[in-house]
């Protein structure tokens, strides 16, 4: 009953696997997913209340600083994280690098992030995620990108933001763009949906879903540049269903305290009084760089 199904199994089993994968994303809602680079950091994240960790060799800020080609992490390192914590462990593969994804699936990863933070392996094609049994999360800047990734099999979407900057401006832009386009589609007349599908370059069925439900067919998190409890609460008030925090935690003065504060801010994101308390005395925030000061816009990778 619990055996792993392969991509060759029947369409029914495959649809069922996709449902289970979307369901896992639903269980992560209202939570914070934290980038970690060592088992020790993973334990700090879990103790602080992370609902999952993203296992990385380097956090985005360091990837950005180091330059060069950035690839999937060492599977041995990822396995170390899997042993260190009981919460889901995610890992990143390069855009289009389906063999890195196969490797991550082979080590029983809980979620694959096909991520623009790493160097893209394919400048045209994303991974055909329908051929995998493990779930994928993908970044998106707008509704069209989100729905294209979902059509390719993504079980979860996150905003791209501009990772490794500590600057939330891009995540805000992307979340606002997505929500505003969702509202626009939701308000359309039935016969306008065909043209919307054409303009968004996505199948009609997905546009129809957004029209009927006023939301994406999968869970939608915020990511990229979240550095404070206020940033996290801002993204939640803008419609995110949870938050990824990358460099913001372990590039700050007191990671454990900041991580716990961000977790609480996501749960009580409308309570300004509590947010004020949570924002006190967190030590030094990640210094960050402004998104317009950087030369490499990772968000433009894979559209």
């Amino acid at each position, binding site marked *: *009953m619990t055996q792993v199904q392969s991509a060759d199994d029947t369409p029914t089993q495959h649809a069922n696997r996709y449902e*289970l994968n979307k369901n*896992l994303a639903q269980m992560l*809602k209202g939570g914070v997913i934290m980038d970690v680079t060592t088992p020790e950091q993973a334990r700090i994240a879990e103790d602080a209340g992370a609902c999952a960790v993203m296992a990385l060799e380097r956090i985005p800020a360091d990837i950005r600083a180091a330059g060069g080609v950035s690839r999937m992490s060492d599977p041995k390192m990822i396995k170390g994280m899997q042993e260190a914590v009981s919460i889901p462990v995610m890992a990143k593969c390069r855009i289009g690098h389906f063999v890195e994804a196969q490797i991550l*699936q082979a080590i029983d990863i809980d979620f694959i992030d096909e991520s623009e933070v790493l160097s893209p392996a394919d400048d045209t094609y994303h991974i055909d995620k329908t051929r995998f049994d493990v*779930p994928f999360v993908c970044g998106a800047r707008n509704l069209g990108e989100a729905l294209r990734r979902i059509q390719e099999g993504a079980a979860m979407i996150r905003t791209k933001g501009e990772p490794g900057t500590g600057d939330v401006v891009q995540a805000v832009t992307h979340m606002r763009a997505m929500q505003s386009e969702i509202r626009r589609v939701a308000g359309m007349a039935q016969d306008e949906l065909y043209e919307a599908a054409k303009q968004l370059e996505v199948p009609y069925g997905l546009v129809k879903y957004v029209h009927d439900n006023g939301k994406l067919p999968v869970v939608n998190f915020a990511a990229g540049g979240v550095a404070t409890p206020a940033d996290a609460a801002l993204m939640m008030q803008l419609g995110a269903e949870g938050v990824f925090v990358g460099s913001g935690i372990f590039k700050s003065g007191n990671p454990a305290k900041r991580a716990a504060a961000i977790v*609480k801010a996501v749960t009580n994101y409308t309570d300004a009084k*509590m947010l004020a308390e949570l924002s006190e005395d967190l030590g030094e925030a990640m210094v960050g760089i402004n998104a317009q000061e950087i030369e490499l816009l990772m968000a433009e990778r894979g559209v």
Partner: protein
Amino acid sequence: MRIAILALQGAFAEHEKTLSRLGVESFEIRQLRDLDRPLDGLIIPGGESTVQGKLMDDLGLTEPVRRLIESGLPVWGTCAGLLLLARRIANDVRTHLATMDVTAVRNAYGRQLGSFSTRGSFAGIPDVPMTFIRAPYIAQAGAGVRVLATADDRIVAAREANQLVTAFHPELGDDLTVHRYFLDMVCKQVAR
């Protein structure tokens, strides 16, 4: 009838939606003052038990909720909720509310590739859909615990007086069986 749903993290919105389909009013518990509102039952949703447990502690909710359960409030824990209610967790030193006399096993089916769905009998009702997401099961149930469902000979739903637990997620599908069962528990308690 008003059902409170613990809304610290996880799939609480799905429970709200299911209850509203049944015409039942619900509200969210996100912090201590939310417990001041009158409630007839409590649902602890799926999500990550470590996150929900920690937030309950940090927000001062653990003791008040435990007292409510001990005073007879009907409570239903799905998946992570089961772990929060379990008195013992076989593969974890952490326990949380620990009000129900069962020993649970965390991530008992492994990681996400071990997640599955099946159908089975729940409290004598046949063919109920059951979705398990990185789910626990109950390895051992105390004398006062009634087993309501098994899957592959493992206990996946049980009841001890006012406490109901399911290792699976009825809130993820369209089937209303388990929600109806819980509301019936609540109704009987209200009538008393």
